[in-house]
């Protein structure tokens, strides 16, 4: 192989490397989507702890909003001829975020409700136990059970 041929091969490889780098630079939006979901999830988990009353509104809005943004990016990507793996990565991100957000999108159980839930469970286990002063445990008991409770008292 002559020096001229070696130089030609070198130039060709530089040209191809440039093309591959241009292709890899293209789908920068996938990073944007990952960042969007990272912020949504981080803010959402913090809200659950610090402002639980907003959480009920936040999660459905953020989940639907995030999904619509991702869908828009996918449509734009497909229209611009992005390749399959990139679109697949985006779908993976969307579905992964959906799995994360799905169980979290339930309204949070407030501390007092959590407490009453525990009491209701213990009343089911031990029906003969006396009810608390507020009668919280009564809500989940049938009239017949309440009558039995009165008789026991």
């Amino acid at each position, binding site marked *: *192989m002559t020096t001229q041929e*070696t130089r030609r*091969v070198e*130039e*060709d490889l530089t*040209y*191809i490397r440039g*093309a*591959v780098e*241009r*292709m890899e630079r293209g789908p920068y939006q996938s990073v944007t989507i990952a960042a969007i979901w990272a912020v949504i999830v981080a803010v959402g988990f913090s809200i659950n702890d610090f402002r639980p009353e907003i959480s009920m509104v936040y999660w459905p809005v953020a989940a639907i909003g995030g999904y619509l943004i991702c869908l828009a990016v996918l449509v734009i990507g497909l*229209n*611009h*001829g*992005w*390749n*399959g*793996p990139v679109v697949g990565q985006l779908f993976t991100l969307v579905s992964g975020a959906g799995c994360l957000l799905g169980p979290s999108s339930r309204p949070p159980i407030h501390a007092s409700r959590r407490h009453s839930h525990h009491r209701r469970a213990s009343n089911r286990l031990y029906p003969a136990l006396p009810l608390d002063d507020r009668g919280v445990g009564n809500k989940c008991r049938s009239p017949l059970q309440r009558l039995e409770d009165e008789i026991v008292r």
Partner: protein
Amino acid sequence: MSKSLENLDKLLEHRSRLGACVLLSNADRLSFSRLKELLNETDGNLGAHLRKLENSGYVDLDKQFENRRPVSWYTLSKGGRLALKKHLQALQVLIEESAV
């Protein structure tokens, strides 16, 4: 050295054709306009190179209509992938031999 030269694929010796195959090997499919943008080629040149690859069975062409516009999607065939692999291996050997 001569054996390495023999192993080079004549069709892939042109940089546009080699570039197109390398790009297609990293993607499921690429449109003509995307390939043109990435390879910095004119419509005519790229079309001619891709036709050669298509006639040799290295790439598959799928023409579709999207928003009433024709879009040509190219994919690397199994034969094309194998030929590219062999060509790159031969090229690597050649470079190593040249470096010695």
